[in-house]
């Protein structure tokens, strides 16, 4: 079981490393969207500081949408997905491997980049810390929920837009608790409730999304 998980993760990471442009576009999109806000709303420090968490989270949400289309489509087009479905191991496990690899190349870079961008908005160190913890808990959920959408829209023409329309509403709870945690810490309140809710979402997603995605893939293959 774990061998398969490691195999899929390693394979997807190697593929991502040989197609580095894909990782970079997501990251550059994230940096661009975040950097456009101060230019658009003006350099008023107080306002920027208040917006920071929201802007970073929304940008992370949008840029995670960018790479979702590629999660299964390349494997679908060259027939690898067929072979994966015929693997004598659990398809859910295989899907979990693909989700993990996807998060490592599209979610993790955003988490690492976020503190640098947060400084641009003059976020205090404490808020930055909570932002990163929130993103660490939240971005895997985005990848996992996104995978369901990606599996459902597999092989559809213009599936990219449909995918965003399907997935974005489902990501709202992550956005609310993620930004809520940062607001709480700036107001001097406890962040425990927000972070534990994010953690709960992560656990729920870990349990259910691989199975749901596997079923969606089976439907798409018909």
């Amino acid at each position, binding site marked *: 079981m774990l061998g*398969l998980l490691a195999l899929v993760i390693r394979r997807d990471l190697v593929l991502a490393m040989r197609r580095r442009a894909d990782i970079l576009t997501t990251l550059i999109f994230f940096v661009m969207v975040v950097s456009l806000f101060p230019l658009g709303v003006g350099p008023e420090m107080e306002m920027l500081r208040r917006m920071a968490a929201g802007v970073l989270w929304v940008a992370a949400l949008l840029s995670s949408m960018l790479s979702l289309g590629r999660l299964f489509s390349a494997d679908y087009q060259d027939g690898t997905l*067929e*072979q994966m*479905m*015929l693997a004598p191991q659990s398809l859910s496990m*295989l899907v979990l491997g693909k989700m993990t690899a996807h998060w490592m190349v599209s979610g993790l870079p955003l988490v690492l980049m976020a503190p640098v961008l947060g400084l641009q908005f003059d976020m205090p160190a404490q808020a930055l810390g909570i932002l990163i913890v929130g993103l660490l808990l939240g971005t895997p959920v985005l990848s996992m929920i996104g995978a369901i959408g990606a599996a459902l829209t597999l092989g559809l023409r213009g599936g990219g837009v449909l995918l965003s329309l399907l997935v974005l509403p489902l990501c709202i709870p992550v956005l609310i608790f993620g930004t809520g945690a940062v607001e709480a810490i700036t107001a001097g309140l406890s962040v425990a409730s927000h972070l534990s809710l994010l953690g709960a979402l992560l656990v729920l997603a870990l349990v259910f999304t691989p199975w749901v995605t596997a079923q969606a893939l089976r439907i798409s293959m018909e």
Partner: protein
Amino acid sequence: MLEVSNLACSRGDHRLFSGLGFALHPGQIMQVQGANGSGKTSLLRTLCGFLTPDEGEITWCGKSIRELDEEYYAEMLYLGHLNAIKDELSALENLRISAGLSGVELDEKEAMNALRRMGLRRRERLPTKVLSQGQRRRVALARLLVSDAKLWILDEPLTALDVGAVALIQELVAEHLARHGMVIFTTHQPLEVAGAEMRSLLLS
């Protein structure tokens, strides 16, 4: 052994075939014949469990393949129209990964030997995007050499292959049948297998 009874399959509103039944025993080979669009690929994909048949049942050693699921997949190998190889990976990496997915741990030497037998000497470490169509097909077919599956389901295995490679596939199929394997395949080219009676199934 593989048994199919009263199978019916349709794509959209179009009924491809119905009342189809056959049994494939160890050491037997069957060719599925029919014009373009007669449902050859659909039949093979139904046997893989990708498509749900409208009616009828497919059983493997007496149990429905739906129930067996992973146990059945461990004993079959499917090679479709698509090669299922990644352009960015080398032939060697492709073979080792696809073997790994089907549950066979393959070390580098075994993979190298398989690729060499497929006529890919000195191409093992090249990214497959620089290989020709026929060579890429050979990489995909190398899976036949490293698999221990009993049932081979081959959809047009000979496309893009040259005469030498076709002879090699005939040899591999004959070896597989001698090991009490089973083969069901479609092709538009003649495939002669020494020492085995070729059964054929005509879809119309």
